[in-house]
C-alpha cells in the first residue's frame, strides 16, 4: 500500500472514531441509564456549527463545600442524586472520592465561594445544552421566559444516568416535552394576516 493511502486510511478511521466514540458512549447511557429529572433554567443561544439550542442550567449549581476540598475549589466531585416526591431529583451528597451507585453523576467543581454561612463550591454539570429545531427554538425560549416572568414552575431536564455519566434526553414543561408544547402552541396560534 502506498504511504498516502496508508495515511488516508488512518485519517479515515480517526474521522469515524470521533463521532462513533460519542455515539457508543452516550447511546449506552440513553438506553440503559436511570431516568431522572432536574429543575433548570433554559435560555436560547446559538452554536455556529450545531445550530440552536436551549442552554440547560440546573438549579443546583452551588453546593456546600465537600470535606477535603482544596481552596482552589477545582476538582472532580461525585454527586448522589435522589428523586423527591415531586419526581424531581436533588443532590443528596457530594464527595471528592468516587462513589458507586445507579444515580451518581460525576460533576466538575469549578470554584470556591467563601461565605460566613459556610463555604460553597460551584459545580458544572455534564450537560449544558438541548438542541432544538431552529423553527422551534425561539418559541421555546419565549415560553421559558414567560413562565419565568410569571413565576410558574421552571422547566425540568430529563436525563439518563449510568456509571457516573449523564445524558440529557429532553426538557419538560409541566411533564411534557418542550418540543411538543411549542409545536402545540404554534398549531393553536392563528397565522399572522
Amino acid at each position, binding site marked *: 500500500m502506498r504511504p498516502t493511502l496508508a495515511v488516508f486510511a488512518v485519517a479515515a478511521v480517526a474521522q469515524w472514531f470521533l463521532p462513533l466514540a*460519542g455515539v457508543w458512549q*452516550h447511546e449506552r447511557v440513553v438506553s440503559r441509564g436511570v431516568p431522572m429529572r432536574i429543575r433548570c433554567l433554559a435560555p436560547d443561544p446559538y452554536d455556529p456549527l450545531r445550530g440552536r439550542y436551549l442552554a440547560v442550567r440546573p438549579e443546583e449549581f452551588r453546593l456546600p463545600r465537600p470535606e477535603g476540598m482544596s481552596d482552589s475549589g477545582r476538582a472532580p466531585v461525585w454527586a448522589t442524586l435522589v428523586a423527591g416526591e415531586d419526581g424531581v431529583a436533588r443532590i443528596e451528597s457530594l464527595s471528592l472520592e468516587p462513589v458507586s451507585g445507579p444515580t451518581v453523576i460525576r460533576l466538575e467543581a469549578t470554584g470556591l465561594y467563601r461565605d460566613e454561612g459556610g463555604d460553597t463550591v460551584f459545580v458544572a454539570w455534564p450537560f449544558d445544552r438541548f438542541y432544538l429545531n431552529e423553527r422551534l427554538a425561539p418559541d421555546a425560549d419565549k415560553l421559558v421566559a414567560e413562565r419565568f416572568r410569571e413565576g410558574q414552575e421552571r422547566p425540568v431536564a430529563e436525563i439518563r444516568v449510568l456509571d457516573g455519566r449523564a445524558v440529557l434526553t429532553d426538557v419538560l414543561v409541566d411533564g411534557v416535552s418542550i418540543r411538543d408544547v411549542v409545536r402545540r402552541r404554534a398549531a393553536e396560534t392563528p397565522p399572522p394576516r
Partner: protein
Amino acid sequence: MSLLHHRWLAEQLPAWEREGIVTADGARRLREQYAAEPRGGLAQVIVGAVGALLIGTGLIAVLAYNWDDFPRWVRLALALGPLAATQAVSWWVLRKGEAARPWQREAAALVQTLAVGAAMALVSQIYNLPGKWTDLVFWWCVVSVPLAWVLRSNAVAIAYLIGIAVWTVAQSQQANWSRAGDVADVRIWFPLLLAGILPRWPGAELRDRPAPGSRFVLAASTLAGLLAVAACAGVRAEQPNDAFFWLAMLSAAVLLLFPLDRHGATEPLASKPEVVLGGLALVIMALIATYEDPARALVKSVGFALPLAWCWLLLAVVVGFATVAFRQGRFAVLAVAGLAVVPLVAAPLSADDISGWPVAIAYTLVLFATAIVLITLEFLGRQGAARIGAALITILVILRMADADLSLLTKGIAFIVIGSGFLAFNAFVSRHRAATPGESPA
C-alpha cells in the same frame, strides 16, 4: 521576480529556444533558476473548491436544521452517510494517483473535510453533548489535516490554518477570562498544530511552496496564533498578566525574521506576507510605544515576561533567525526587528516609578533611525524599502505634529509640506529604480 514573472518566463522559453535567443542548456538553467509552479488548472481548482465548499456548507446547514422529527438512528445515518460517501470518493481519487486532476483532489478533500465536521456536529447535536464549538473545531482540524497532505489540497490546508488560529485565540480568551489552568496550554499546542501543515508545505520532498494566497493565510494564521499565545503565556491565577506587550513584539519579530531560501529572499515584498505582517505588527506596536503610558507598560512587560520560559524560547528563536538573516544580508528586516529589542535595553535603565517619556522618545528616535536605514539600504543597492522608510518618517512627523500644541494653521501647512515631500520622494524613488537595473526589492 514574482511568480507571475516566473510563469511568463516559462511560457516564453520554448519560443526563445526555437528562435535561437537562448541555448537549450541556457533555457534549462533559467527554468531551474526561476522555477514556475505548475498552474494545475488554477481556475479548475478554484471552481472545484468553491463547488465543494457550497456542497459541504449546505450539508452542514441542512444537518444543523435539527431534524427532530426523525428517530435517532435516521439522524445518525444522515450524519455518517455523507462521511462514508465522501471517504469513498477521496479513496477513488487517491487511487488515481498523478492521473487525478487538481480540482478533483481539492473538491474531494474539501467535501470530505466538511462531511467530517457535519458528522461530529450532528452526533453532538443528537446527544445534546456539552462543550464549546471551538472544541469541535480542534478535533475537526486534527482529523482533517491528513487530507491536505495526501490529496495535496490547498483549500483544506487553508481551512486548517484558519481553524487552528481560531481555536488558539479562543483558548487564549478563555485562559484570560478564567485565569485558570484548566484550559489547553496553547504554548505547547499551537506550535504542534502549526507543525501539522509541514507535510503539505514544504512536503516530504521539501519542494511544495504555498501559492501567494496560501502564504498570506499561513503568515496571518501564525501571527494570530503567536499573539494569542503571547496574550495568555503569562496568565497565572490571581496575578496580573502584563507580559503581553513585549511577548507580542517578539512574536512579530519571529514572523518577520522567518528564514527564507536564496530564491525567497530575493522575491518582492508583496510575495513575502510574513515580512509584511510581522513588520507591520512590529511597527504599529512601536508607534504605540511612542506615547508615554504605552511606553511605560511596554518596559514593565519585560519584567513580567522574562521569568517565562515562552519568552526565552521566543528570544532564542529571534536570535537564531536574526543570525540567518544577517548571513543572508537581509539588513532591512533586521533593522525593523531591532524595534523588539528596545524594551529589553530600556528595562534595566528604568526605575519602577519612572515616567514613560524617556522610552517613548527613545522609540521615536529608533523608529526614525529604522526609517533612515530602510531608505539608505535601497540607495546603497542592498535590500531596502525606501518608500516604507519615507512613509514611516511621515507617520512619525504626523503623530508628533498632532500631539504638538500648535495652531491649526501651522499644523495644516506642516501637513501640506510633509505630504508634498512624501510625493516628491516617491517620484524620486521611482526614477531611481527605473535607472537601476536589477534593483533588489525588500
